[in-house]
């Protein structure tokens, strides 16, 4: 069965030798995003279904609304005096500057810089942080003691091989792991590192894009993801990549090899021109930047535990494809386990405890010496491949509760942005802090923003 599909692919390649289209990708109609304005037709349900139903159009509208959720109206569309649009902005925050990040600045809120190649804008953000940044007037975060610890680790890692600095941020739900990863990312970007950020690693394994089986590597490659990653990587690190060149000859399928000394930007453009080449090009690019020692590299992955879970992809036998058989997760796992490394840099991952479709697997729990909530005795099966991929990971525990000064800064940010519906006094602060037991997400979302009190 497998060889048949491969033969078909080869035949199709011979027929369309000069075409730049992707080889026969196993596309599924539900996985493609409808273009704007395109009406999605509902499949006819036997003799009862009608074509061009209005519900089909409504479905598209609903989806559009879903994507545009939590998008605040621009100030120009709020002329009514009730909105107080002309009121001066009371949220005066200092900018997040790497030089000022010392213990002195602890429990202070700093706003993230906003520019064309901002990693947040280009790479994207985890969903809940995206919503928060849309609600706030400007993206900001509070510097915690654990932030300074992480930054010290990054400073130490900038001269060492990434094999020695593979850190995973752990902690209970809502304690601030993703935010800490964002702060590390911004710090490295400001310090002129090459940064690659995967905000939602669950998207790599939850079967949202098509895959193709690659005979050469005998893995399932994800060309769309690789293409997107290359695009974003290039955009964020454009200035730095212009200074780098390839050091070895790189072979790419169906194409003459790329000679050494080629600018990396050109190599990336090869991958951007043809989506089919993107996975190979991405692997090659990461290898090349791993060899150079001019810029340290940060590989930051949120939802890190999803890389160690079984994916939602199915092969032709309808069995679940393991995550390390998919190209993108495999690449990230290789760097996370130290099998591949950057000459200078670090790999940072943040796990997500609240995801029930991709829960924290046993192999990763053991590697990070975390508490168990399920049977973990010697009779519980562990996958040896995942154990190997999780070997040597370092844990950075994010404290479960905010300290009082940190919580006070968080409170001030939301209060000054006029997002708290209740009267913002110290009683409210202490009440909500006690209710949340110091947990950051519970404090903000279930405490400050969800309740009204006189």
């Amino acid at each position, binding site marked *: 069965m497998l060889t048949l599909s491969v033969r078909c692919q080869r035949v199709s390649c011979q027929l369309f030798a000069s075409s730049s289209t992707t080889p026969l990708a196993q596309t599924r109609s539900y996985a493609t995003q409808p273009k704007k304005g395109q009406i999605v037709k509902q499949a006819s349900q036997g003799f009862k279904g009608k074509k061009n139903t209005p519900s089909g159009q409504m479905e598209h509208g609903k989806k559009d609304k879903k994507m545009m959720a939590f998008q605040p109206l621009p100030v120009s569309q709020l002329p009514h005096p009730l909105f107080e649009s002309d009121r001066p902005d009371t949220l005066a925050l200092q900018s997040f500057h790497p030089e000022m990040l010392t213990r002195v600045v602890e429990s202070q809120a700093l706003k993230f810089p906003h520019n064309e190649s901002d990693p947040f804008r280009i790479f994207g953000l985890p969903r809940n942080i995206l919503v928060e940044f849309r609600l706030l007037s400007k993206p900001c975060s509070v510097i915690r003691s654990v932030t300074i610890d992480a930054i010290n680790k990054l400073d130490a890692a900038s001269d060492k091989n990434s094999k020695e600095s593979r850190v995973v941020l752990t902690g209970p739900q809502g304690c601030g792991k993703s935010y800490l990863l964002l702060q590390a990312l911004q710090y490295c970007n400001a310090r002129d590192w090459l940064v690659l950020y995967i905000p939602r690693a669950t998207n790599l394994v939850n079967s949202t894009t098509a895959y193709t089986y690659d005979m050469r590597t005998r893995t399932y490659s994800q060309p769309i993801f690789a293409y997107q990653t290359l695009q974003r990587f290039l955009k964020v690190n454009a200035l730095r990549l212009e200074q780098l060149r390839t050091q070895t000859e790189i072979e790419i399928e169906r194409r003459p090899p790329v000679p050494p000394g080629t600018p990396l930007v050109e190599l990336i453009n090869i991958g951007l021109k043809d989506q089919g080449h993107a996975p190979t090009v991405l692997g090659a690019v990461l290898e090349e930047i791993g060899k150079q020692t001019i810029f340290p590299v940060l590989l930051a992955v949120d939802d890190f535990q999803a890389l160690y879970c079984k994916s939602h992809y199915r092969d032709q036998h309808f069995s679940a494809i393991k995550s390390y058989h998919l190209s993108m997760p495999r690449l990230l796992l290789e760097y996370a386990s130290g099998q591949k490394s950057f000459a200078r840099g670090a790999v940072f991952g943040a796990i997500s405890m609240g995801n029930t479709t991709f829960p924290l697997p046993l192999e990763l729990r053991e590697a990070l010496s975390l508490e168990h909530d399920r049977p973990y005795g010697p009779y519980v099966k562990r996958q040896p491949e995942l154990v190997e991929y999780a070997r040597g990971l370092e844990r950075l525990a994010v404290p479960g509760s905010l300290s*009082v000064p940190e919580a006070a800064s968080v409170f001030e940010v939301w209060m000054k942005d006029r997002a708290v519906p209740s009267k913002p006094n110290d009683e409210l602060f*202490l009440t909500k802090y*006690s*209710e949340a037991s110091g*947990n950051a997400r519970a404090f903000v979302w279930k405490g400050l923003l969800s309740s009204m009190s006189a």
Partner: protein
Amino acid sequence: MNVLRRPAGLSKFRFYSTQTTRPFVPPASLNHFDFRQRQREKPRPTSPAFYTARPEFYDQLSSLESALQHAKTALTSCHLLPLPQFAREALPPRVNAWVDKRELGLKLRSTLTTSRYRRVVLVLNELETYRAIAEKAGIAELQEGIRGITELFERADAATMLARGKAKPVKFDEYGRSYTLGKRKTSSARVWIVPVQQPPADKSTASQSIPAATETDTALTALLDPISSSKSNEPVSVSQILVNNTPLSAYFPIPADRARVIHPIKLAGLLGAYNIFAIVRGGGTSGQSGAVAHGIAKGLAAHEPAVATILRKAKLLRRDPRMVERKKPGLAKARKRYAWVKR
């Protein structure tokens, strides 16, 4: 000689008296009688109650009544009896817990009927009243004397009987922790509350003498810009709440339950003053949160009595009597009726 052996009573016998009822016996004929023997045959009864139905009972009763009489004379001599109306009203109302009929019968060594029991209790009550008057007046000797009698007839568990219906005072252990119980629906919570230990005051800052100029400066800045200048280095104490050994936010995910638990502390204004540890069993989330809140309210009222009135007004000290109503026959649920069908 025989003349000397005449009984004593007969010596006063007047032979010429016309009011005698006895037949005349010439004294000479009584000479051969030995009256001493006769005296020995029938001894005099020891108590005046000998010829009653229950001599022991009447003996005891008479001794009690004589004690009462002595107490009365003593108080009268101190001009405390008769007590004017306002003074009687000023005395604390006494609820007495005497032994029951059977016990009293054992003490008095005779089985008692209800009327006899009531008679004894009446005397005891009077004694107790006089004791109260003596106590109030400060006559310690008399009060102790009466107490010595009345405590013989008091129940062993008099204290608990008198405290029935009243709230037991909450006890604190050697670490200053209060232990209270809270209940709601079918949940019950055991709550321990301990004051937050304030960190020892920073000696270095205390020893620094602040010159007058900077004081006014800081005061001025505080006036003009209160928010930014209020960032003092004083640590803010925070209440830690553990329910079944998990933090409050982890045990109660619903914000309403968390707010219910915090509500008594918030009303009392004691946020950050006390740490709370609770073990709760039974029921569901809202029942458990209500039980913990009830326990916390009682504990806080014990720690700070001034706060008890506020909590009582907010009905937080009251055990919520609402329980799940039973299903009735003919109804689908407690109140829900089946669908009405016309035919």
